C-alpha cells in the first residue's frame, strides 16, 4: 500500500466519517463509552452557551395561556407531562435523554457578573478568579495523548472559560466557525528551516530567561509555543474540521455556525478533548423578545437535538455531559418594547448525558410570575452536580495564588438528577 499523503488521508477520513484519523485514545474512549452502563463517571462536558440570558418562558419553561406568556404556546415532548415552548420540536423528541432545572437561582443580574457566576459556579470576587467548569475538568481529568487543546471555546463570545486560579494554561482555546481547518496551523516552510527557526527560538529564550526564569515560565509563551507546534503536526487537528463529516450529519445539526460548532464539539470530545463550549449569542431580548427568541430557536433546536441524538447513537452520551444555559433568564413581565429584562431569580437550564438522568424536571415557577420558584437550585448546586457526574470531588480544597483556600463548589449535588439511588 502506498504511504498515506495528506490528500489520501483526507479522502479516507471523509468516507469513513472521521474514524481513521482517531488516535488510539479516542478509540479507547469510544469503546469505553459503549459500555457506559457500568456507571463510570463522565469524561467530558459540552456547554451550549446562550449568551445574553435566554428567556425561560420561550424555551424550557413555558406558561401558555397565562398573562406572562405573551402568546407563547407549548408543545408536548417524548416525556409525558413535560412541555417545551414552541420552536423546540426536535429537542422535544430527545426529552427522554434531557432533564430540566426550572428553578435556577442566582443573584447576578449584570451580563459580566452573571456569566462569571454561571461559568464558574461562584459570584465575582475581587480577591480571586475562579476557574470555569471546563478548566476544572481539564485539570482534574488529565489526558496524556491529546495533542490539541483540551479546553475549547467555539464562536467565542466576550467572556470565554478561564483557568482562573488554576492558571492561564487552563484557559479555553478560542476558535471560530469550524467550516474548514483551523487557521494558521500550516507552516509555509520546508521542515529543515522550521527546525532551524525553532532552534533559534531556544537560543533567544535562554538569554531572555536569565534572571527571570520563573516569570518567563509564567508568561506561558514557551508552553503555548510547544502546544501550537504540537497541534500543527497532529492528525487530531482534523477534529475541528466539520467539512469532513457526511452531509446528512451536518444537516441534522443545522448548517449554521452554531450547528457546525456543536458537530465539532462531538468530534473534539471523541478525540479526547475535555470541555467544549459552543456559543450562541443574541438572547439579550430587551425589545421584541418573542421574535428574536423564535429566530434563535431555529438555530438552537436542530443543533442541541442533533448533538444529543448523535452522541447517544455513537454510544458517547453516557460519558459526555451536555449543558444548555445562559447567564440568567428574563422577566415574566413584558416591557413596553415587547421585551423581557434580566431575571436571575428563577430561570431554566437543560442538561443531558454523563450519567445524569433524562426526562426529569427540577423546580417549578409561578405561572403568574409573582411567587418565588419551588425547589430552588442555586448555581453552586448545579456545579456540585456536574462535578459529581464527572467523578470530581466538588469539595476539593484548592489554594489560590494569594493563599486563600477555595473549594471547587460550595453547593450540594442534586441527587434526583444523579440517579445513583436507582
Amino acid at each position, binding site marked *: 500500500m502506498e504511504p498515506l499523503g495528506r490528500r489520501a488521508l483526507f479522502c479516507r477520513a471523509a468516507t469513513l466519517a472521521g474514524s481513521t484519523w482517531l488516535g488510539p485514545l479516542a478509540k479507547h474512549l469510544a469503546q469505553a463509552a459503549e459500555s457506559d452502563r457500568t456507571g463510570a463517571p463522565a469524561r467530558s462536558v459540552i456547554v451550549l452557551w446562550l449568551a445574553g440570558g435566554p428567556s425561560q418562558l420561550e424555551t424550557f419553561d413555558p406558561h401558555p395561556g397565562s398573562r406572562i406568556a405573551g402568546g407563547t404556546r407549548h408543545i408536548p415532548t417524548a416525556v409525558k407531562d413535560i412541555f417545551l415552548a414552541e420552536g423546540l420540536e426536535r429537542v422535544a423528541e430527545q426529552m427522554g435523554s434531557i432533564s430540566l432545572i426550572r428553578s435556577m437561582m442566582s443573584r447576578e443580574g449584570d451580563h459580566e457578573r452573571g456569566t462569571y457566576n454561571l461559568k464558574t459556579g461562584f459570584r465575582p470576587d475581587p480577591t480571586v478568579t475562579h476557574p470555569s467548569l471546563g478548566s476544572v475538568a481539564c485539570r482534574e481529568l488529565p489526558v496524556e495523548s491529546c495533542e490539541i487543546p483540551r479546553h475549547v471555546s467555539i464562536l467565542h463570545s466576550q467572556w470565554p472559560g478561564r483557568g482562573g486560579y488554576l492558571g492561564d494554561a487552563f484557559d479555553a482555546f478560542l476558535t471560530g466557525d469550524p467550516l474548514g481547518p483551523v487557521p494558521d496551523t500550516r*507552516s509555509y516552510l520546508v521542515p529543515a528551516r522550521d527546525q532551524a527557526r525553532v532552534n533559534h527560538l531556544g537560543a533567544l529564550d535562554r538569554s*531572555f530567561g536569565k534572571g527571570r526564569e520563573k516569570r518567563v515560565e509564567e508568561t506561558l509563551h514557551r508552553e503555548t509555543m510547544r502546544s501550537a507546534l504540537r497541534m500543527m503536526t497532529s492528525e487530531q487537528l482534523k477534529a475541528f474540521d466539520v467539512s469532513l463529516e457526511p452531509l446528512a450529519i451536518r444537516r441534522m445539526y443545522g448548517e449554521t455556525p452554531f450547528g457546525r460548532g456543536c458537530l465539532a464539539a462531538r468530534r473534539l470530545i471523541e478525540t479526547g478533548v475535555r470541555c467544549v463550549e459552543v456559543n450562541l449569542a443574541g438572547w439579550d431580548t430587551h425589545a421584541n423578545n418573542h421574535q428574536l427568541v423564535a429566530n434563535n430557536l431555529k438555530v438552537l433546536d436542530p443543533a442541541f437535538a442533533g448533538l444529543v441524538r448523535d452522541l447517544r447513537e455513537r454510544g458517547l452520551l453516557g460519558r459526555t455531559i451536555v449543558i444548555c444555559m445562559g447567564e440568567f433568564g428574563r422577566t415574566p413581565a413584558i416591557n413596553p418594547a415587547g421585551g423581557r429584562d434580566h431575571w436571575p431569580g428563577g430561570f431554566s437550564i437543560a442538561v443531558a448525558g454523563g450519567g445524569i438522568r433524562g426526562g426529569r424536571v427540577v423546580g417549578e415557577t409561578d405561572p403568574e410570575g409573582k411567587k418565588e420558584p419551588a425547589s430552588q437550585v442555586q448555581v453552586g448546586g448545579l456545579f456540585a452536580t456536574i462535578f459529581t457526574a464527572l467523578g470530581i470531588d466538588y469539595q476539593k480544597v484548592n489554594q489560590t495564588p494569594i493563599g486563600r483556600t477555595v473549594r471547587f463548589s460550595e453547593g450540594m449535588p442534586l441527587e434526583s438528577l444523579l440517579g445513583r439511588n436507582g
Partner: protein
Amino acid sequence: MALLKNILFVALILAGLAAMGASLVPSKSGRRVAVVASPDGEFKETVTKVDEAFATAWARDGIQPALPADALTVARRLSLGLTGTIPSLEEIRKLEELPEGDRLDWWISHLLHDRRYADFVAERFARAFVGTENGPFIFFRRRKFVLWLAAEIARNRPYDQIVRDLITTEGLWTDKPATNFITVTIEPDNKEKQNQPDPVRLAGRVTRAFLGIRLDCAQCHDHPFADWKQGDFEGFAAFFGQTRVGFRGVHDGSGEFKVQDRKTREYRVVEPRVARAADLLPVDGPLRRRLATWVTHQGNPWFAKATVNRVWAILCGQPLVTPIDNLEAFESPPEALAILADDFARNGHDLARLIRIIASTRAFRHESISRLDSSQKAEKTWASFPLTRLRPEQVAGSVIQAASISTIDAESHLVTRLMRFGEQNDFVKRYGDSGDDEFDGRGGTIPQRLVMMNGKLVQEKTMGGPFNTTTRVEWLAGNDESALEALFLATLTRRPDTEERDHFTRSLADRTVGRGHGIQDIFWALVNSTEFSWNH
C-alpha cells in the same frame, strides 16, 4: 486613479532606494537633536517622593529592588507605552548619538511630540470612555470621537477640561465629537427609552472611567465590598436624568429621574446627589455641569488617583492598583498613587507632566530582571519592572516597525501609513483584541502563537522585499556581525549577547541555507520570541 497609484508607487520606490542605506549602520555625521524641557523643582521633588515611598515599602518587606535598566530597554518601554510600537533602527541610531545622560529625557520629549503618541493614548482612553464597540450607528461616531480626543491630547489640554467636555458638551455627535460619550449609551432598539441616552450606563461610565469606582454593581444591590448603597448609584444616575437627544443633538431638558423598584415594580423619583464629598458639588446650574464640576474638582478624592492609575497602566502595561477601575478593592494602594495624584491635581491635570514624572521614577527605569527571580512578589511591589503581554496593536505595530529600518510615523508616506493601518487591523482581529478590559494581565494563547508563526503579516514581513529589514540587511550589512546587530536592534532594541552571537554567527555560516533565507529565519525567530511579545 490608477495612474496616480502608479506614480505614488514609483515615487515610493525611489524614495525607498534613496533612504536605503541610511540608519543600517551608525552615522558618522555627528548631528545633534536636542530640546529637553528642563523640569521644575516640584517635578523633581515628586519623583523623589515616589522613589522614597517605594524604597520604604521594599525595605519593609525585605525586597531587593532590581538594578537600573539601560537606556535602550527603557526607550523600548516608552515607545510601546506611548506609541504602541518599538523604536525603529533609525531612531535608535539617533538616540545613541546623544550623550548617555540625556538620552531618556530626549526620548520622552521626542515621543510626546510624535502624533503617534496622541493617537495611541487617545485609543486607550477611548476604550474606558466609550468601549470598543461601534455602538448605535445613527447616534454614535467612534472614529470622530477618538480623533477629537487625540487632538486634545496632542495639544496637551488639561485632563479635567477634557472630562468636563465629555460630561457637559451639547450639540450633534457629528459636529461636537465629545457628545459621543453621551450618545453611545442610546439603545435604538429600545422603544421604551425612545432613543434617549441611558442615565444608568452613563453613571456607570463616569464612576468607572473617571473615578475608578465600580459603583454600577450598586445598581441591583448594595456594593458587595465597599460602603456604597444602591441609592448612591441612583442618585448619581439622576444627574443624567435631564439629558436629552433631539434634532439639535445632546441638550438639557427638564423632568425628573424615575427608577422602577425591582420588587414592587412601581416608579419613584430619585433626586440627583453625590454620596460623598458633597461640599464640592455646586448648588446651582444644569445637572451635568454640576456633576462635571464635582467629578473634576481638585479636591475630589478619586478623580486624580483614577487618572494616575490609568496613565501608569498605559505606560507600564499594568495599573498600580488592579483592577484599573476599582480603586476601592480590598488592598491598600501603594503610597505612590496618592503622591502622583497630588502632583497631578495641583499642576493643572497636565497629562504630559504626569507621563514625564512616571517615566522618571526608579520603578519605571529599573530592570525586569530581579537578582533573586523572586517571581511575582518583586513584580507586585514594582521592585522589578513587570513582564506584561503586549496588546495586539502593540504586537502588530512592533512587527511592522521591525520590518522597516526607517520610522513609520505620521511623517511616513501616506501609502506606508495606510498599509500599516490595514495590516494592523487585520492582525488584531486574528490575534484577539483585548477589548475594554485591556489591562487585565494574562498569559499568552495558542492562537496568538499560531498567527505569529504561520500568519500572513509575519510571513510577508519576514520574506524578502526591497523595503523589508531582512532584504536591506542581506544587501547592505558588511559582515555577519553587523547583520546580526541590525536585526537585533530592529526587533528587540538591543544587541545580541555573547552566546546569541555565537549561535547565530554559526547559523549564518551554514552554507546549505542561502544567506537571505538564513537572515529571514533569524528575523522570524526574533519576532516570535518571548522577549518580543512581552513588555519587559
